[in-house]
């Protein structure tokens, strides 16, 4: 016989359990079927995930496909000092990390020994290989934190032209800034759900918009030419104690920029530690009074108008000439000089007399046709337009001052374009540094073709100018130090007193040299500008003494590297025909 008490207890337990289960079932039914929209919404929110699919910026490459800027996966090495300290491994861990990360031991120790710190980055932006070495050590409390950073493999090489993108991935200088819209790409979007351990459930993906990766920007820049230029500028900064230096190498026939460099420079991977003035791209961002290099444009205008011939003789007044009641001096006194001699000796008085023959209006028309006083439109930010006042506003003496490169201001690129126009049979080409923009599928989004902007002078004038300018680098010229073995160089020296705060500063120069190579059929044009250099041997600061040797240091390896070919006999015959004015 079963005990009645037992039956009661069992019934009670069963009823209790049924009540509990029933209650739970009712609650479950209520939650699922009842009016719990807010609650359901909360659950949906917890489970749903909306994720932005980020993509890296596009790459920047030189004309041969060498990478200049890319997004690189790197790692921060993080230490949990609390964990390391609790294991009593502070010194051991510090020693290992210091060795592998190539950091000072004391610096690592100071971070690892921080009391009560749960998170301490010991090294930032470490390459994957190095991070793997750290992980192989299997140190407790040490782990890598993956991230992607903008990386510039060549450090300071081409820094002013390339620019950089900031921590938010926005281009903030140079090509990175100007071409940000192409480089940045477009992030994608994914809507999905995740499970209890916060893993995405792929089957519940409701929306997937693929990201559009940033396009690659291919430059006309040649990394090796850039290296030759920067090496020469570094040497000039050291040897000539210049305050700054900048140079450009341009393909004469196309206007493509092969190199553009400024000094002082900075490491693009540490741009934040650099003063803003160091980041200035002086090649396009600094206006300067060009001095005698400007005579090139003036003499070419005189020749083109038929006002002077190469062998016309001018009285250079033994170094002192008064015009509009103001004296004009030459660096050395000269008597009679023909037009070639005016360029070879860089006579201010001779150039001024040609300018007077031209007249203000006509001279201004030519200078405008060369593109002076207006930006060249090169695809980098911060380009200055130079200063070329309207001729109506010129004072009477200005025509003589402009002739020798005073009372005007130019950028190095503008000045080089004038010379390249002479090198390119009178065609002024549009300077460009971006060759093409290509998306990740290989579709060319934009391509820059060589573009002729104007033809201020004729083919014959250009050839005659090149012939005369070649004399500048030969014996008796001001630019003999720019000569390059195996080639004839057509060039011009320039020296101008520096202007600080709107006033000329005595004993401070901006010296320059620009040249074409080879003179007869130029392929490359180079300009070098030095801010306040001094030749230690002579104490002189003129362009012929300071900038011309820097030009030679650039031109020689560049000509060899690009395999610039001197003219053969047949080409010389053709060149002579142009000089002779044959149809």
């Amino acid at each position, binding site marked *: 016989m079963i005990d009645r008490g037992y039956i009661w207890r069992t019934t009670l337990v069963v009823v209790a359990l049924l009540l509990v289960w029933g209650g739970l079932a009712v609650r479950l039914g209520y939650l699922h079927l009842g009016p719990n929209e807010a609650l359901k919404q909360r659950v949906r929110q917890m489970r749903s995930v909306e994720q932005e699919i980020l993509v890296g910026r596009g790459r920047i490459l030189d004309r041969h496909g*060498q990478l200049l800027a890319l997004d*690189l996966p790197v790692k921060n090495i993080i230490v949990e000092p609390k964990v390391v300290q609790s294991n009593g491994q502070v010194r051991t861990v510090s020693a290992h990390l210091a060795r592998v990360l190539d950091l000072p031991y004391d610096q690592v120790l100071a971070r690892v020994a921080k009391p009560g710190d749960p998170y301490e980055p010991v090294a930032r932006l470490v390459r994957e290989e190095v991070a793997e070495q750290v992980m192989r050590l299997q140190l407790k409390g040490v782990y890598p934190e993956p991230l992607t950073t903008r990386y510039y493999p*060549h450090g300071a090489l081409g820094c002013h032209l390339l620019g950089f993108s900031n921590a938010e991935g926005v281009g903030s200088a140079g090509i990175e800034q100007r071409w940000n819209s192409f480089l940045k790409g477009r992030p994608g979007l994914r809507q999905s759900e995740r499970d209890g351990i916060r893993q995405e459930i792929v089957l519940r993906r409701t929306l997937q918009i693929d990201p559009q990766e940033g396009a690659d920007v291919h430059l006309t820049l040649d990394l090796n030419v850039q*290296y030759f230029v920067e090496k020469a500028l570094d040497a000039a900064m050291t040897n000539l104690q210049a305050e700054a230096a900048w140079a450009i190498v341009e393909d004469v026939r196309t206007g493509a920029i092969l190199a553009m460099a400024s000094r002082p420079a900075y490491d693009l991977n540490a741009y934040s530690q650099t003063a803003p003035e160091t980041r200035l791209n002086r090649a396009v961002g600094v206006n300067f009074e060009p001095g005698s290099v400007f005579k090139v444009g003036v003499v070419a205008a005189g020749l083109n108008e038929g006002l002077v011939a190469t062998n016309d003789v001018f009285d250079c007044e033994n170094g002192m000439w008064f015009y509009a009641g103001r004296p004009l001096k030459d660096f050395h006194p000269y008597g009679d000089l023909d037009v070639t001699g005016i360029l070879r000796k860089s006579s201010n008085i001779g150039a001024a007399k040609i300018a007077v023959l031209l007249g203000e209006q006509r001279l201004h028309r030519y200078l405008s046709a060369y593109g002076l006083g207006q930006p060249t439109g090169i695809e980098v930010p911060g380009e200055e337009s130079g200063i070329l006042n309207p001729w109506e506003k010129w004072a009477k003496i200005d025509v003589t001052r402009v002739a020798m490169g005073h009372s005007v201001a130019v950028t190095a690129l503008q000045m080089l374009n004038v010379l390249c126009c002479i090198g*390119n049979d009178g065609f002024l080409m549009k300077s460009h540094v971006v*060759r093409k923009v290509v998306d990740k599928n290989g579709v060319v989004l934009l391509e820059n073709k*060589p573009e002729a902007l104007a*033809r201020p002078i004729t083919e014959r004038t250009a050839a005659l100018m090149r012939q005369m300018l070649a004399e500048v680098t030969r014996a008796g010229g001001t630019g003999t130090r720019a000569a390059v073995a*195996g080639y004839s160089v057509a060039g011009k020296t320039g020296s101008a007193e520096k202007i600080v705060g709107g006033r000329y500063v005595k004993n401070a120069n901006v010296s320059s040299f620009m040249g074409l190579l080879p003179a007869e059929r130029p392929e490359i044009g180079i300009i070098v500008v030095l801010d306040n250099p001094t030749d230690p041997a002579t104490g002189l600061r003129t362009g012929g003494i300071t900038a011309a040797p820097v030009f030679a240091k650039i031109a020689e390896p560049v000509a060899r590297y690009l395999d610039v070919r001197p003219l053969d006999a047949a080409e010389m015959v*053709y060149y002579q025909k142009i000089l002779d004015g044959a149809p």
Partner: protein
Amino acid sequence: MLWSIALFGVAAALAGIYLGLVNACDHLGRQIKTLEANRAELRKQVVNEERNWTMARSIVNMERLLVAHGIEMTFPQERNIVRLVATEPDEPAQYALRGAPPARD
């Protein structure tokens, strides 16, 4: 009785198919996740290798290696170069006039 067994069989078969499909989809989902992770990893490796390749063939690195191995190299002088010239040389290229793409661009 027979009908109910058949109905049960059909229901079981449908349930089995449903479970099989869910399983297959789950498997595919896991595969997609794995492949996505693999692709991301491979992309990282490609970028790293591209960077290493660029660094290896940069002129700075070449010069460093030449110095390290005590090798002196210069560009050949013009007299050391033998050129093969076409019998009918072109006139000097003038891109702006001829409109043809220049050799170096």
